[in-house]
């Protein structure tokens, strides 16, 4: 394990401290209870507050998306571990301006349970809270007999569009509805060429041979659903995008946002090679590439790999996508 860290037990603390130092114009950071990253000007009068969070190790998600037009607060837990209810409750209180608070929760047992408790506690303090569970990962079969699909890179699109709706003044009900709509129209799938190593574990989350690829990985260094031999990028892209297209399904003339997301250790040059093929597949199917996003936004530490996300949009959702956003990791329009 070779990392730019000091003490494996302090990576989250020091990463949050560095984030706070770099973005003091955008956020303030609560360290007790640890940690809450709050939009500098929260609570914003009259606005629904948006809170998300989850285990650390997925940077820039979620703290990198705190700011105008996106989240009001992010709650980073320990490495790959959902935060406890205390900081979630604290975040909820700090961003509540009386218009209510939306919790955006990735669908993992730990996240769901801890946010659930925090929401109960907030309700008990008189804060109106709604929750939206994000579960965009098509690698996991959604059924009554599993924990359901995971929330992966699509989460950032839920945060972006719901954030824009909150910023324009939509009500809590409406913002929650938009978040649910986005979740229902976004699908993702990822793969890894190399695993990541959780600092305190000191060993890779799984082992991969020099010519193996893990397909259908999550964002917590979980192994995926299948291991195959390494193939050319275009073929691997097909293996990700086809299940995505079939799942919703995405059809001819649909308009989509295409997100090609690096898992943390993948260079931009490879993401663009992936993007090239993904866009080609969409063109072949007559699907309209309305917007493109390429970068490492929802990561698994230094994992080498990529995920592909498609979001089906209409005019209203596209307006929300295009709306100004000013956060550490996503910024346009201001």
């Amino acid at each position, binding site marked *: 394990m070779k990392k730019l860290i000091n003490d494996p037990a302090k990576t989250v603390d020091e990463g949050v401290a560095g984030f706070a130092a770099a973005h003091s114009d955008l956020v303030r950071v609560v360290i007790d*209870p640890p940690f809450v990253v709050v939009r500098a000007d929260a609570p914003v009068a009259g606005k629904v507050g948006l809170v998300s969070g989850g*285990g650390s190790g997925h940077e820039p998600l979620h703290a990198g998306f705190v700011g105008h037009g996106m989240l009001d607060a992010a709650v980073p*837990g*320990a*490495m*790959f*571990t*959902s*935060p*406890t*209810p*205390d900081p979630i409750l604290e975040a909820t209180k700090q961003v509540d301006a009386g218009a209510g608070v939306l919790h955006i929760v990735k669908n*993992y*047992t*730990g996240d769901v*349970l*801890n946010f*659930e*408790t925090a929401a109960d506690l907030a309700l008990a303090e008189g804060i109106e809270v709604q929750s939206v569970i994000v579960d965009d990962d098509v*690698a*996991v*079969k959604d059924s009554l*007999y*599993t*924990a359901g699909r*995971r929330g992966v890179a699509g989460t950032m699109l839920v945060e972006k569009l719901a954030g824009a709706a909150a910023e324009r003044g939509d009500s809590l009900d409406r913002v929650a509805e938009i978040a649910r709509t986005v979740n229902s129209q976004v699908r993702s799938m990822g793969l890894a060429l190399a695993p990541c190593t*959780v600092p*305190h*574990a000191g*060993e890779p*989350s*799984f082992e991969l041979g020099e010519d193996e690829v893990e397909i259908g990985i*999550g964002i*917590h*260094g*979980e*192994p995926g*659903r299948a291991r195959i031999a390494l193939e050319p990028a275009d073929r691997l892209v097909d293996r990700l995008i086809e299940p995505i297209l079939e799942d919703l399904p995405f059809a001819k003339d649909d308009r989509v946002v295409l997100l090609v997301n690096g898992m943390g250790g993948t260079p931009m040059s490879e993401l663009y090679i992936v993007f090239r093929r993904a866009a080609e597949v969409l063109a072949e199917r007559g699907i309209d590439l309305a917007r493109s996003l390429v970068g490492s936004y929802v990561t698994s530490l230094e994992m080498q790999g990529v995920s592909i996300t498609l979001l089906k949009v209409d005019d209203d959702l596209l307006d929300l996508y295009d709306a100004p956003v000013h956060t550490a990791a996503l910024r346009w329009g201001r």
Partner: protein
Amino acid sequence: MSGLDGAWTRRWIEAVVAEIATRKSELTALDRAIGDGDHGENLDRGFQAVLGKLDALDDAPTPGAVLKLVATTLISTVGGAAGPLYGTAFLKAAMAAGDRPELDATGLVEVLTAARDGIVARGKAEPNDKTMVDAWSPAVEAAGAAGDDVRAVLEAAASAAAEGAIATEPLVAHKGRASYLGERAIGHRDPGAESTALILRVAADTR
């Protein structure tokens, strides 16, 4: 001693703290195989925090008071799935214990049952879903059938939990992160079931 008092409960928890610290990397390794490799760290973080708070207890706390302290501390320090689940288990156990100064065999079975029911209510896992429930449920059943000696009840619960944990190995998971793996989870023991077995084994061994 015919029943388990608050001092015993405290000794048990102190022993759990030590045992989790010792077996932390083993639990994490189990979680790395079919989860995200943090279960040992999560519990250790929580129980270390518990250790720091035990001195805030009364001189002669009730079992319920100790269990409640463990519950609230785990809830606010563990996170992940295990935090709310163990937190709920200890919280429900504390509520079942009430302010009784000692737990006799019947009381102990009530407490264990409440813990298990709390986990099931929160996590919605059924038996054979390959979760900690697969250690808790057999433990509760064995405890209920063990008669009216608390030591026998503890021993029965610990042994059944250990067997339950082992019995998760051939299963496909239907809850928690291991469920994402489908067939590939087969052959691995569930970390939460293992930590449950460990906690109950320490109870049986605590005098």
